[in-house]
């Protein structure tokens, strides 16, 4: 009886102000799409980091002949300098560095020749044009700075380079996009709260007669307020479901079916990730509706 009554009331309320309900649905849809996009962008960034940071290394370039760097005044790095560096890496940086690999000029030339068998931009290079380096794989790629601090300025070291730097612009762009989405989401969420508040207030006012009688005959506060609360929550959840649907379509057609086909060496977000974000979005929708209705209803239908 109770349930059926509440359901009827809710349906009546939804029918009574259809246009407001639709606007609540749309605003939550758009705002939660932004929230979801921000979350998916973050997921994408994390995936890329996971994938790529495994591959990247820190290169410690050793002094070649004729370098102008102050640490290379003595000319090409000597065996002693290289041994000294290796000792430093094995002791001082033992916790940070997972693997050390010395790439000699010969190794570098071999790799180069394999990559450019016909010479580089028209010139045939020799082994002496190559530069020896230590390739360090770090336990945590984010700790590049520690390595740089320890090794930069040592005798025989020309420069310490972090391969991660290549990816930085991409990550920066993705992070900014995700921030932008989050910012827009914030604005839209505010709009959603205000709209839900207004909708519930209108609904409560249009049913003041009913709620007045309910209070008089002793209906409990929850019972009086539940239909309004559900009305807001239903509209918001429908918006959230639409947002999940939109993101799902977006990821499926834009990422999985298109990006993945054209640039396939990158790990992309999948529709599975969208489903992981879905509970978050629906949770936000419910929270929005409940908070705005409780605030409004306490003002308009209190016993």
């Amino acid at each position, binding site marked *: *009886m109770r349930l059926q009554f509440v359901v009827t009331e809710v349906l009546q309320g939804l029918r009574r102000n259809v246009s407001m309900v639709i606007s609540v649905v749309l605003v939550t849809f758009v705002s939660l799409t932004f929230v979801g996009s921000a979350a998916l962008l973050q997921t994408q960034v994390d995936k890329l980091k996971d994938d790529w940071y495994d591959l990247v290394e820190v290169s410690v370039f050793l002094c070649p002949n004729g370098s102008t760097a102050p640490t290379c005044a003595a000319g090409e790095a000597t065996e002693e300098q290289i041994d000294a560096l290796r000792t430093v890496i094995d002791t001082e940086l033992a916790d940070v560095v997972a693997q050390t690999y010395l790439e000699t000029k010969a190794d570098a030339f071999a790799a180069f020749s394999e990559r450019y068998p016909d010479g580089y931009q028209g010139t045939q290079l020799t082994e002496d044009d190559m530069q020896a380096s230590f390739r360090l794989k770090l336990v945590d790629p984010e700790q590049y700075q520690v390595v740089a601090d320890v090794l930069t300025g040592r005798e025989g070291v020309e420069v310490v380079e972090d391969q991660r730097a290549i990816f930085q612009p991409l990550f920066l762009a993705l992070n900014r996009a995700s921030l932008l989405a989050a910012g827009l989401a914030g604005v839209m969420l505010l709009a959603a709260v205000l709209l839900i508040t207004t909708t519930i207030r209108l609904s409560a006012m249009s049913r003041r*007669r*009913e709620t007045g*009688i309910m209070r*008089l*005959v*002793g209906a409990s506060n929850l019972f009086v307020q539940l239909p309004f609360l559900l009305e807001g929550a239903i509209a918001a959840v429908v918006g959230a479901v639409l947002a999940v649907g939109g993101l799902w379509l977006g990821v499926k057609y834009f990422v999985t079916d298109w990006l993945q086909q054209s640039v396939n060496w990158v790990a992309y977000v999948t529709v599975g990730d969208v489903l992981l974000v879905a509970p978050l979005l629906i949770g936000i929708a419910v929270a929005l509706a409940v908070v705005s209705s409780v605030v409004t209803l306490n003002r308009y239908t209190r016993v």
Partner: protein
Amino acid sequence: MIRFENVEKVYARGARPALDGVTVDVARGEFVFLVGASGSGKSTFLRLVLREERPTAGRVYVAGRDLSTISSWKVPSLRRSIGVVFQDFRLLPNKTVYENVAFALQVIGRPRHVIKTTVPEVLEMVGLDGKEKRRPHELSGGEQQRVAIARAFVNRPQILLADEPTGNLDPTTSLGIMRLLDRINRTGTTVVMATHDDEIVNEMRKRVVELKTGTVVRDEAVGSYGERESILPTIGGTPVLDAPGRNQPAIRVTPEPADLEAERAAEEAAERAAAEHAGPLVPVPAEPPVRTRRAAAAARRYPADDVVQQVLAENSRARAGREG
């Protein structure tokens, strides 16, 4: 049942107290008229009983509960033991008579089978049998007030509050409403009624509490309306108002036929109830067997309501006695 102890009520924007040191004790089953000029605090009194307002000083006890300390989540349960009727009926225009009455039970979570039996019963009692499907705008004022009373009484409250229930009705129709309230009072329900209707107060010969600018200036066990008493000749009326328009036929407005019909229907319901309880004592009019079964079933299911039936029976016996 209701006790006011030195109650003072000053509204937030009120210049003077709406009630000022009011001490009144209403016993269980009493019928009390609240009279007094406009603004004397009658409605405020009723709102305090309902705990729509809280006293600024003093204590209000209703049905054994101290309303000055009751927590707000207990207020609904308090209100379930109080029925209220207003001058403007306050019916829901888009619901039928039946739905209006059922609404009061639905919103307090009564199960469907209870509603199905209780609502027709109470509609029959107020004389609206057969009009269940009408909407409020298809009813006369008197009938609308009957619906409102049915809604207030359907949960069998211990207390019925009425704020000028006859304020919008012609004298004859008012009398019908008063008869109904009297009947309800005889089921053991405490009735407190605020009114400006001197005729009714004088005829009913009930307890009268008069308020004047928020203080009790008179409290008589068998009172009359007051100031206008000298103007109106004393009526040797009966406590039971069973003869509509008997004393002042000349000044009666012609009542709505529908109201009279409702009145008759209520009477018949009372008679039928009487027939079932008193058996051979009262001549039983021929009646459709369906109805008997329903009433009998209702009586079986709600032994507590026997008191209602008994009163209805008593009422019609008295009438039969007078007529016969």
